[in-house]
């Protein structure tokens, strides 16, 4: 089974975790929501699959390009 790393597109703070490990995701389902530039910006699944793990916690600061989750495809 292949894995796909999900990266943050933008620097900011993890505001809310929306999906939990084990959950089935369709492409573009929201995994978590970041706060950046005073806005709530979703991090979405780039591919469909199972959310294998979350690599960040709510409140954590995240840099652009940082891995935030792993999807098993």
């Amino acid at each position: 089974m292949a894995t796909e790393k999900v990266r943050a597109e933008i620097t900011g703070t993890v505001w809310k975790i929306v999906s939990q490990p084990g959950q089935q995701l369709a492409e573009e389902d929201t995994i978590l929501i970041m706060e950046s530039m005073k806005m709530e910006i979703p991090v979405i699944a780039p591919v469909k699959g199972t959310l294998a793990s979350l690599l960040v916690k709510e409140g954590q600061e995240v840099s652009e390009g940082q891995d935030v989750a792993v999807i098993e495809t």
Partner: protein
Amino acid sequence: MAFEKHVAEHERRKAHALAMGGAERLAKQKAQGRLNARERIERLFDAGTFLEIGMFARSDRREEWDRTPADGKVCGYGRIAGREAAVVSHDITVKSASSSPINVRKMGHMRRTALANGMPLVLLNESSGARIPDTMGAIGTGTLGQDPTQFVRMREIPYVSAVLGPAFGTACWFTQLSDFVAMRKDAQLAISSPRVTEIAIRQKIDPQELAGWRMQAEVVGKVDYGVDTDEEAIDLLKKFLSYLPSHHNETPPRAAVPAGADEGSRGLLELVPEDRAKVYDMRKVAAAICDPGSVFPLKDRFARTAFTALGRIDGQVVGILASNPMFKAGAMDPDSCDKATAFLVLCDSFNIPIVILVDTPGFLIGVEGERRKAPGKVINMMSALQMCSVPKFSIVMRKSYGQAYLNMGGTRNTDEMLAWYSADVGFMDPNVGVNVVYGVKREDDPKRFEELKQEIQRDSSAYDLAGIFSAVAVIDPRESRQWLARLLEVHQKRPTKGVGRHLMGGWPTTF
């Protein structure tokens, strides 16, 4: 029977050409779930309209005559939804559809005939690249390049490409020149194959990383769609062409207006959050404004802060260019600018009016952007917009700040700029502006920060924009579609009858 021997010989030669690379190779192709070069043409054209050109062409090497039916590239004319088009369908079962002096001559004929007669050129790409040993040595390589216009692209006609297998060399070059590309997810698109590349640079290569569809669709931005089957790829080419004129001196074909076409825009107040901290998917806004089911996204996996799509309003084809707050809050980056520029060039070249939907905090600035030539890309996009001579309309929905306001059609950079009553226009995001202008940070003095923010936000409303007649109207979002439909009617009255000046026909957009 008269000419009996001729008839028999003619039929034998035809059968030989139609047998392509032989039953074994065709069976292998089928077992892989792929159509062969001729089945692909059947899928492409209206039934019974294919007229083959160059069926009896073959390698110029005598010892290969019997092994090179059609010399590995099946060409001809046919109709797509009643409109003529030219096709080059690479036959992987014949010498891996490699490019040779003869089949390149065939390709040149198709290209020139399509150009001369104003019809799209369809390229069904699957080729290993240049043929060996034909192109070896000074004689082989020096024989290439007989057509000094082979790679000139003035966008007089649409080029569309499907990448259906390995596509190296000429197949890759013509894909780069194409206006639209659909690629099989198991195909490869690159200068050379992973094997040749590995040997040349002495490094292990991941074929997907070098030449895979996601690389092409998400990083490079050349491929519009990744698909699982040949049929899907070919159907997408036909769909793209349904939005385009056959050539640059025509306007795009009109379609019937579906029933209930006005209903979507009535839901716009629910699609766009009033709370400015919340984002939304601009693709849904485009779908609500356009005729139901008509929005056809282009490069949807690339540079997603910009959204580009063809669509129809009241049956008339339009190009939608938008910032998408769903990604990076809609802030434009260098790739978004490239994507927007390529789209503007496409629309202007083929007489497609442009609708710009704006909700952007501006350009993403920083060291990385400068390294990636952000200033040049910003101004490329701006130049392209100003050079567009098709009708251009913009709608400022929420935020539109700074230079991005101008790049997204602000003031006279579109023919008519509308503003939703929720529009907010200024030199930069007020939260950043307070610090820049007054040197006050929220965490140091929240009360003073709020006061100064109010000051900066003063005079930034839709009515202020209309008060100086930069916006021609302030509208309710639900009226967007009706406004655009009427403006399209007004701006189609031009004496040029909708055909633009095509100042960017020759602009390279592969960057």
